[in-house]
């Protein structure tokens, strides 16, 4: 992060991480507020609590109301756990074994193909728009880690 001088996010080293219970408190508060707002969206335009919470936390970080050191440790911990937290969802497929037995092979094959299609079509489209930015609008599209 130090390599990028123009980076506007505050350096983490400036502050000691907030106590973990405070970080949990911020997460809990954002989730609770999101859960109160989420039902206000119409059934035809669902915005689930975690998606809304992601947006709220991002806005709070951009507005510098919540500082990175106040949520960073908890966030990194949770992101690192996601593969494990997804195990129950995987095991949930036990309940869908019947669907899979009926026309399973076809459905699974299509899902595998669609997964690859989504990854590749989004990535290639982005490469296309980046190319247009670079060659038509002469913008610098170089990004650094």
């Amino acid at each position, binding site marked *: *992060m130090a390599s990028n001088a123009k980076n506007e*996010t505050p350096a983490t080293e400036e502050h000691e991480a907030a106590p973990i219970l405070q970080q949990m408190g911020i*997460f809990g508060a954002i*989730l609770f507020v999101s859960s109160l707002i989420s039902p206000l969206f119409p059934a035809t*335009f*669902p*915005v*689930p*609590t*975690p*998606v809304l*919470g*992601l947006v709220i936390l*991002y806005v709070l*970080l951009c507005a510098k109301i919540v500082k*990175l050191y106040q*949520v960073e440790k908890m*966030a990194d911990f*949770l*992101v690192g*756990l*996601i*593969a*494990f937290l*997804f*195990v*129950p*969802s*995987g*095991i*949930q*497929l*036990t*309940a*869908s*074994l*019947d*669907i899979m037995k009926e026309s399973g092979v*076809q*459905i*699974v094959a*299509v*899902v595998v193909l*669609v*997964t*690859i*299609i*989504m*990854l590749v*079509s*989004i*990535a290639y*489209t*982005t*490469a296309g*728009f*980046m190319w247009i*930015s670079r060659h038509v609008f002469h913008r610098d599209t170089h*990004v650094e*880690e």
Partner: protein
Amino acid sequence: MTWATFLGNALEKNPVTGASMGQAFFGIFLSLVVFLIGQWLFKIGKGFFLFQPLFVGMVLGIAVLVVMAKWFGVSATYFYQAAYKPGGDILFWFLNPATIAFAVPLYRRNDVVKRFWLEIVLSLFVGLIISLFLTVGVSRLFGLNNVVTASMLTQAATTAIAMPVAGAIGGNTAITAMACILNAVIIYALASILIKFFRLNADPVGAGLGLGTAGHAVGTAKAVQLGSIQGSMASIAVVVISIFIDLVVPTFARMMGIFH
């Protein structure tokens, strides 16, 4: 004494208090054990892609439940709901805070977001439309009927959006939920291979957006491992693509004659 005496049965109520008889201990323990076995296999298998901990955990977990259900003489679905689900649900809940945690990797590379927000939004929109057409094409090729095809259209969104939208366009929400789960497992297992094969390395913005779209939260976690730009882009993709699915898919399904 039956298995329910020890593992609990969430589908039965205590005759006195009316509370569920479910117990969370078995579900949490089983999830941890199968995932740790997955991690161990991944380590000794020198990173062989089928030994990804999430994939191994899922397959082993399902196998254990199916074998136990057979042993106790109940159906696998029943045993899953009665014995595993209470514990599984507790772990599943933590996907809520884990999803909002993606605001942090997103914010860390706010410089990239600010520079390329237009390219990001356009790429996600156009890329999604392209993938929707290809999805219909592939579904037709495999001879899937309209109900199953409709269930396939919303899988780029996070499950909580994909399911109700699929239901609204005449899809089967159980198939959509299964598709979303498989997306994540497939991306987590194959991300590195796919990135190499399709040469997505050159453009970290595109790779990140693709991983977030195709692999949801799990794909984003994978993108965070690949680099800060990929992680940030995958996080923004999860939000924006979900909203596009909300907005675009009902009209698209009508246009394609999948739903009237």
